């Protein structure tokens, strides 16, 4: 340690002023650099286009084409149908633990609808609606959640990251991908999804800061569903809303009704355009609710009263969008019923395909860790394969 930590180089500086007098600023010392006027924390926009009764704010009705609107509706229905089927399969022992997404369908789809194939998406483990929209087949997602490694990698041609099971640990790599876009001057963007719980992770704070400082083309979608397993939002954050966090890191922030697919789509589209154009990251707090379980290994009746969920039945993102579609003259009760039935058939078809093709490949576990297997691992692989050849590890 330098000695001058304990020495005052200027003895005058410690000379006390006479009582009742404040010392004059010394020669050469500039008057206060600190602006003492109150700080305006800035604006957080709040966006809702369809309210919970399906009422439309006509001034905000986005000019989306009819074909897209119809496929958005189908995407919502398919997501919920798939979720139901997965839950049934899990309860019948056919599926491993997974995280249902009942009630969060609009939030999920809205964050990927504005993306092109050149853009990237980084899902969290509750994002399978968004993954289906991005081009992950339902068969692949069933493989994934049934414990087959083949379901984990993003399909060819889909610029997505795999999700990480450790909450929030995918957000930094997502920002890194966006920094890669800047490095290569590619006008694309990354949308990364995480929840209210993930926002408590240090790594997510680092990711927000790094993205802001580097003007990385990222759209952070914080899916605030009110719960991190059994921990409610008020035990996760002391701020009134989560959007204020993004503002604190120096990026535009907006709070969106996550059960309003139009609002989600519009907000993400605007943020994505800004990102692609060099305008840096945006933070979107998407307000929704986890109506179902954290995962199939969870029992919410232990920590949550059922009556807390009831109001969210009224806020159903699908019913609200169907009201809008009827108003637009794009769907009626008959076509809606048909779409629900078609989605059910599509999911059953995927399930049957999954059942007839799913196979584990225990011999391949050594194939992907390194580009070329090091010699020392060859010996471990050979011993492992011998065990398999001798019938080791089989259920019988």
């Amino acid at each position, binding site marked *: 340690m330098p000695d001058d930590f304990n020495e005052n180089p200027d003895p005058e500086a410690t000379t006390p002023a006479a009582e009742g007098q404040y010392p004059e600023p010394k020669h050469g010392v500039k008057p206060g650099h600190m602006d003492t006027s109150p700080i305006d924390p800035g604006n957080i926009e709040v966006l809702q286009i369809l309210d919970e009764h399906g009422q439309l704010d006509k001034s905000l009705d986005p000019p989306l084409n009819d074909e897209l609107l119809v496929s958005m509706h189908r995407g919502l229905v398919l997501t919920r149908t798939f979720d139901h089927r997965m839950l049934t399969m899990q309860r019948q022992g056919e599926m491993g633990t997974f995280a249902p997404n009942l009630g969060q369908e609009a939030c999920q789809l809205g964050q990927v609808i504005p993306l092109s194939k050149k853009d990237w998406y980084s899902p969290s483990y509750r994002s399978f609606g968004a993954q289906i929209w991005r081009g992950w087949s339902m068969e692949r997602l069933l493989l994934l959640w049934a414990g087959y*490694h*083949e379901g*984990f*990698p*993003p399909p060819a041609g889909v610029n997505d*990251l*795999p999700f*990480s099971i*450790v909450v929030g*640990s*995918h*957000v*930094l*790599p*997502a*920002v*890194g*991908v*966006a*920094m*890669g*876009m800047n*490095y*290569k001057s590619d006008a694309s963007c990354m949308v990364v999804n995480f929840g209210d719980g993930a926002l408590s992770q*240090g*790594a997510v704070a*680092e*990711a927000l*800061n*790094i993205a802001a*400082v*580097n003007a990385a083309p990222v759209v952070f979608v914080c899916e605030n569903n009110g719960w991190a397993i059994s921990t409610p939002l008020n035990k996760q954050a002391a701020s009134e809303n989560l959007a204020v966090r993004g503002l604190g890191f120096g990026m535009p922030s907006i709070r969106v009704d996550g059960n309003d697919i139009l609002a989600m789509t519009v907000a993400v589209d605007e943020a994505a355009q800004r990102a692609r154009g060099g305008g840096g990251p945006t933070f979107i707090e998407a307000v929704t609710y986890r109506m179902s379980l954290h995962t199939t290994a969870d029992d919410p009746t232990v920590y949550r009263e059922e009556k807390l969920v009831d109001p969210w039945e009224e806020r159903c993102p699908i019913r609200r969008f169907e009201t809008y579609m009827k108003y637009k003259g794009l769907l009626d009760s008959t076509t809606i019923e048909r779409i629900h039935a078609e989605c059910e058939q599509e999911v059953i078809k995927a399930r049957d395909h999954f059942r007839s093709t799913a196979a584990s490949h225990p011999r391949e576990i050594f*194939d*992907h*860790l*390194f*580009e*070329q297997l*090091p*010699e*020392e*691992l060859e010996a471990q692989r050979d011993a492992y394969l011998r065990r398999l050849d001798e019938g080791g590890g089989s259920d019988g």
Partner: protein
Amino acid sequence: MAEMTMVEALNLALDQCMDRDADVCLMGEDIGINGGVFRVTKGLYEKYGTRRVMDSTLAECGIIGTAVGMAIYGLKPVVEIQFSGFTMQAFDQIEQNMARMRNRTQGRYPIRMVMRTPYGGGIRAVEHHSESREAYWAHTPGLKVVIPSGPRNARALLAASIEDPDPVVFYEPKAVYRAFREDVPETHETMPLGKAQVVRPGSDITIISYGAMMRVCREAVDDLVELHGIDVELIDLLSISPMDTRTLSESVSKTGRCVIVHEGHQTCGIASEIIARLNEHAFEYLSAPIRRVTCPDIPFPYFQTEKQFLPDTDTVIGAVQETLAWE
């Protein structure tokens, strides 16, 4: 050939790799205009600009996590963690993403990146600046772990690590950074990863070491050969993972006796792994139990005590003599 310190040799490797491949980029705290706290990246910011030489925010976890993302996007980031003691901040991203992404995605996203970091004691530094925790990374499936011992192999191994298709943890013995100079060829040079080097052939006993401890071992070997007439075989491990088991077992099968020297803690340290492998591959040739000379399982002490804490030539000589005396 030019005489260089390890710092200069590492700088040369970075410069040449960046020159050869536009996807190679650098990221780390204070590596830009400051050239890194040890000046390993000196001049590269001026030569390649802020796009390719990025000063990071003060967040080690963030450096590794974003580098993983850049590697997914096809870049080859070479990141500097200012001191290896600070890699603990990045543990989750190293373990969860850097090491696993290739396997998780079945090869869809290989992670071509290098984490450089100075390690080890002997520079009178404050707490968390002197650790040797290479065993953590060797224990983590999916990583390669490389530790050079001198300017020439540091340059060649760093270049090889940058060109390697898998993630590499590159530990730089900072006690050697400016300790001596060596001839380093000016043209691009690499050495294969995963290969140990027999530095001095001998027939009586094998000493296995790596990194900064190689200097200590070389001095000990000089004494043992000249003053005691012991014909020592000295092996520089260079690559901790994958480990060149073949070279180690061939040597010990020949000499029958072995001492392993490293700075890292004893329990579950690299020496433990070497002993296990020699047990598997050279047991029938052993004439004496294998000894290990390591730091004790105590947090690296405050620097007034570091000389006593670190193994020195006398400890190595003592261990060799005891091993030779075993009947």
